[in-house]
């Protein structure tokens, strides 16, 4: 896709690009290069002594049970957040799509969690689930279920998944609503005339036609769960108990800033950057495809 008519200046475009390129270079490309360099070094906490150790930091990562655990935790977490959040959102979007008069009011009531900071969402759910004074453990206790995410790894995981998914409901909801509205009504009417009930119609027509939206949201949610939930983890479990919720992006920070192991943190940064770039390419191709028609 190209413009047919353009301006022919040579210097001006560079001036226009300069601010963004400068910021990109100083705050992204340069630190990224430093992360790569750091990943080949061993340094003490205060940065006074450092030695070049080649790939030792990477080797240690692959041998470390904690890192492998962190990868596994990240996968479980990302899948759980994506499924939970998208499932709920789709249900709500289909419901809103059915209502005519109250659709707008419901939409307003459902979209605002988008604006709540992940850190705040974490604090809110942490408070609700607080084993000593929280409301939900109290309710669960009445049913004979003992909630204590401080010792129970699965419950801790459930807590961070719920908090992260809650925050993402509005985003998915809006995209599903937009996707549903783009489906021509005539298709559904035709199916209705053929005698297909609402459930059957949903599975044979609506859901397949939503698949581009679903795929796009899946990528977005995985990226969200992997890279944007740092604040949720930090404000609730801090990766515990026993690293049960220590997702990769949290581990980079924790090993670097708290563990003072710069080399390992650098190596983890490099690995994460590769993952991000791969995911970006997938997402980007999808965007480009959409632009074509």
């Amino acid at each position, binding site marked *: 896709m190209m413009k047919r*008519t353009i*301006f*022919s*200046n040579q210097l001006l475009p560079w001036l*226009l*690009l300069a*601010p*963004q390129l400068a*910021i990109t*270079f*100083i*705050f*992204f490309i340069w*630190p990224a290069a*430093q*992360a790569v360099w750091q990943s080949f070094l061993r340094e003490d906490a205060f940065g006074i002594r450092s030695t070049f150790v080649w790939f030792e930091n990477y080797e240690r990562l692959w041998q470390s049970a904690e890192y492998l655990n962190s990868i596994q935790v990240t996968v479980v977490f990302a899948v759980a957040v994506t499924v939970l959040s998208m499932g709920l959102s789709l249900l*709500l979007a289909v*419901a*809103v799509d*059915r*209502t005519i008069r109250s659709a707008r009011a*419901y939409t*307003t*009531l*459902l979209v605002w*969690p*988008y*604006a*709540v*900071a992940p*850190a*705040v969402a974490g*604090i*809110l759910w942490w408070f609700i689930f607080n084993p000593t*004074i*929280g409301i939900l453990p*109290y309710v669960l206790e009445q049913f004979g279920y003992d909630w204590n995410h401080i010792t129970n790894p699965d419950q801790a995981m459930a807590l961070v998944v719920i908090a992260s998914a809650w925050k993402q409901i*509005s985003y998915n909801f*809006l995209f599903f609503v937009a996707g549903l509205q783009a489906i021509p009504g005539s298709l*559904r*009417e035709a199916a*209705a005339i053929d005698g297909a009930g609402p459930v059957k119609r949903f599975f044979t027509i609506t859901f397949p036609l939503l698949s581009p939206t679903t795929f796009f949201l899946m990528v*977005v949610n995985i*990226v969200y769960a992997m*890279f944007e939930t740092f*604040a949720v983890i*930090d*404000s609730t479990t801090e990766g515990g108990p026993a690293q049960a919720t220590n997702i990769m992006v949290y581990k*980079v*920070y924790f090993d*670097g*800033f708290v563990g003072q192991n710069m080399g390992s943190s*650098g190596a983890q*940064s490099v690995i994460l*950057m590769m993952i*991000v*770039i791969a*995911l970006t390419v997938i997402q*980007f191709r999808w965007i480009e495809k959409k*632009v074509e028609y």
Partner: protein
Amino acid sequence: MIEHRPFLNFLTHLVLIFGVALVVLPVWVAFVASTHTATDFSSGIIPMWPGPYLVENYTQMLDTGVSTSGTPPVGRMMLNSLIMALAIALGKIAISVTSAFAIVYFRFPLRNFAFWCIFVTLMLPVEVRIVPTFKVVADLGMLNSYAGLSIPLIASATATFLFRQVFLTMPDELVEAARIDGAGPMKFFRDILLPLSRTNIAALFVILFIYGWNQYLWPLLITTDAQYYTIVAGIKRMADAVDGLPQWHLVMATAVMAMLPPVAVVIFMQRLFVKGLIETEK
């Protein structure tokens, strides 16, 4: 609505009401907690209705804060958050509009290379390269400054992409017309392109404002001077109490105040917000 099914309608509303309740629950609990005193929680169960201490708790946070948990007055933190959010939103829009203009309306050597440089930053969160980025900002002497809080977060490609798409869908005749009138590129940019992208800019502003306001790790790390604390990062410091109970009623009052501005923006500018969200596609 194709056919009329009362039971299905009932179910639809039931689902939606459940959804709304799920969305509201944590915020309601937080609000209720912020209207009680600390001792109301030590009995071990949180009340479900607001108590009488709303004004007292909020004034305490707004006026004095809690110095013993490193929390300056909330008013100050809100101001810092506002400055950071505005700087990030306006900064991103400014650099993205100009660079998208350069990429779409000019042909020059290395154009693709420049485009890829920007593209690489797409959705790469600062958390991933946190350690070296912190170091760069520290070396530049930008810790504890508004510049340090905002500028490093301006580098992102999403907004550039959005404007690139907006410009690509503009009719080519616009440039022709401008040329015939003898307008240079900057005049064209200022008088035609910017006014035509007004809604996109507004929609994007809403999204970026929320993004900026909700930043957490970055302000937490680079501000060690209470003058520059932002509210979202401040909550974390309050919730960490050594040898004592966190003062939940005050933590929650702060959390409610941290939510208010961005939530208000979403509710009052819903149309722009939805547009911005769907268009940027992150």
